[in-house]
């Protein structure tokens, strides 16, 4: 009330001179600012949205030395670091082409490639031939990856012999203790403790889950959960997020077991974890012969990829390499059809997969696609070396896979 004392006269009406001009101007300026901010925000959101979704609208722009191109890649978090190292080296050769990768997850990569919102989709699991045909995409493997089975058994740091059947029984609750006779039979001379097994699984949808459940599904007819990037798990099975989470959680879980990508080999070993020699196809029928258990090495992993492709009829790269890519592998159950591939030398490590890129076979922008194909061809030849693959824990593709890739890329429509 006493504030009114500041009013110079008694005139309290609205028309009293109070500098209305400056007030109106202030309001106008504020509104103008708000509108400008809004427009800028919406515009930025639109552009960013396009960028995030990999819209191709701004793919080719004309700069000083002719047109330049941005190739968008999105998908698997395992492929992302590979793209990060391949991209700039390709740009060094072709300064007008930039590779723009994103780590979004395999499912997202597949979805964006299907809808044509990215030029390259990256995925740990192949796109089924039916879906590939429907969306006009082709699977182009770009690297070989493998999965290791780690465990935390206090006092034991050797390589246990574990096969798909035993793993499937552990993860479906049929085997619950490390001193189970079935485990002991495959590990003569190992003093296994009386300790409950704690099977860890990935909480997030994951290509690693796809590989591991494929192995369980193919090895044990009692496996109830099928295979895929997300499946059901035992209620007693704790979870972790990402390979890094699997490593940390397993390191504190006495009696734990976990499936972890080979990329995390050094982290897991540093955390004091050991990994298993995994049984090949022969171990499914003869689990007690130590010769049927294979340690993951570059040779045994590559061998699996070679064998897998050799066994596939008709030839395709959309293949599960689990257990050496048994013909009709995804339908194989123990004693349920399919023939076991002949033993090769060295014997293949059984949990191997290809890392895939997906591209359109009849793209909307054939000029850009010329560069996409050029990039992949370069990646499959010059990029397919230990220089690029070892830092990201992949293995170079075998000649057979590259042969399929190059053939497949011939079919892509590009403008000359």
């Amino acid at each position, binding site marked *: *009330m*006493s504030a*009114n*004392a500041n009013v110079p006269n*008694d005139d309290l009406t*609205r028309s009293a001179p109070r500098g209305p001009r400056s007030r109106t101007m202030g*309001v*106008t300026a504020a*509104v103008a600012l*708000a509108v400008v901010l*809004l427009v800028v925000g919406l515009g930025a959101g639109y552009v960013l949205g396009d960028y995030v979704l990999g819209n191709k609208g701004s793919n080719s722009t004309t700069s000083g030395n002719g047109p330049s191109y941005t190739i968008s890649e999105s998908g698997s978090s395992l492929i992302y670091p590979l793209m990060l190292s391949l991209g700039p080296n390709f740009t060094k050769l072709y300064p007008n082409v930039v590779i723009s990768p994103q780590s*979004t*997850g*395999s*499912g*997202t990569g*597949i*979805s964006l490639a299907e809808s044509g919102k990215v030029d390259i989709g990256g995925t740990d*699991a192949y796109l089924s031939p039916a879906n590939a045909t429907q969306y006009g995409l082709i699977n182009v493997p770009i690297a070989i990856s493998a999965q290791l089975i780690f465990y935390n058994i206090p006092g034991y740091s050797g390589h246990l012999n574990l096969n798909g059947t035993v793993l499937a029984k552990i993860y479906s609750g049929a085997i619950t203790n490390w001193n189970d006779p079935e485990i002991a039979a495959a590990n003569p001379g190992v003093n296994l403790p009386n300790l*409950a097994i*704690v099977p*860890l699984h990935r*909480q*997030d*949808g994951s290509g690693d889950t796809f590989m591991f459940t494929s192995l369980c599904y193919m090895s044990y007819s009692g496996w*109830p*959960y*099928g*295979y*895929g*990037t*997300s*499946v*059901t*798990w035992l*209620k*007693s*099975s*704790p*979870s*972790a*997020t990402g390979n890094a989470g699997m490593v*940390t*959680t397993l390191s*504190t*879980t*006495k*009696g*734990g077991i976990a499936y972890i990508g080979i990329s995390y080999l050094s982290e897991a070993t540093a955390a004091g974890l050991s990994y298993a020699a995994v049984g090949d196809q022969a171990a499914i029928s003869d689990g007690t012969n130590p010769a049927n258990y294979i340690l993951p090495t570059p040779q045994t992993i590559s061998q699996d990829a070679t064998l897998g492709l050799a066994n596939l009829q008709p030839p395709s790269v959309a293949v599960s390499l689990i257990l050496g890519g048994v013909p009709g592998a995804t339908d194989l159950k123990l004693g349920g059809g399919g023939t076991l591939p002949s033993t090769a030398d060295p014997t293949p490590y059984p949990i191997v997969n290809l890392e895939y890129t997906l591209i359109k076979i009849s793209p909307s922008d054939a000029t850009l696609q010329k560069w996409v194909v050029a990039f992949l061809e370069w990646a499959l030849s010059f990029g397919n070396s230990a220089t690029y693959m070892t830092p990201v824990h992949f293995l170079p593709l075998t000649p057979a896979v590259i042969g399929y890739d190059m053939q497949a890329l011939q079919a892509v429509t590009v403008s000359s």
Partner: protein
Amino acid sequence: MDQPVLRGEGSVGAAGHADPVAAPTPASIAPARRTPWWAWALSPIALLPLIFIVLIALVLLFSGDLKLLFEPGFWSFNFYFNPLAPSQAVWAFPLYLVGTALTAGIALALATALSLALAISTTVYLPAWLGRSLGTLTNLLAGIPSVVYGIWGYVVLAPYFGLTLQPALRSYLGWIPFFGGPLSETASGTGVLLASLILTIMVVPLTTAIIRDSLVSVPHPLLEASFALGATRWETTRRVRLRVARSGVRGAVFLGFGRAIGESVAVAMVIGGQTQIPPSIYSGTSTVSAFLLYQQDSAFIYPALLHALVEFAVVLLLITLVFNYLAQRASGERGAVGPTSAAGI
């Protein structure tokens, strides 16, 4: 004869506070103002959030068609999804809802107590400058992205919880239900307890800010009247301040709960992710939003999973809206208290 021009004389003692009813509101004396053109022009923008919500709901409805909601499996407690046989899937929504309600409930119980203590101490007991600074500080905390809390909880707190705190809690407080249950075999510290505490820390700034605001807005004369009757500061706080601010406190709780059930990232990182009803506060479980967060990538591969996620999202959206509405209504009652105290002063 010496009637002053303006009533009242701004006595020294009372000059320190604004009197909310002294001045008639401009609306009551000024003739109805003409609405300026720019207000009309901007009004559709104010509607944008509403339009967005409607759009989101429509998109969700069309892509989900809500058929699953009426299948018994949706309401089961035993999750089952086999990518090879998607038609046999059992989505077990209540299982995830239990995790959500449990973590949010524990978090809100803790957060409300903590916020009341913080709000009361900063508004009533601490010197004004310190209270204001602490208030500002709490508001700042509200802006921290939840993933930061999640990473902090996962990296820093989880190992300590798993190896030290949880075994200690269990041996000292094991006689309390849920404190005595099995420890997680992973000893990773993730689970109901850690998720609830992370949520508490996230929600406290929000609830404290709202409760503080409602405590501060209690008209000063009411407090003076209480003191004049010989009430102590605590008695005045309990019997006058909190009573008048009750609706604000209720609004804070509802809003905090809405925030807590919708929070995904931080909770997902520390919830443990087991598909079970937690047998103890140390156990891992999952929440609706953690499920949405972690399954969205797979959902692009399996249409059935996408379908389920959409319907989870619809129900979560509805639940959150209900709590935000309750929060609105609770603070709407504060509007009703306004006239109350106005008439009283």
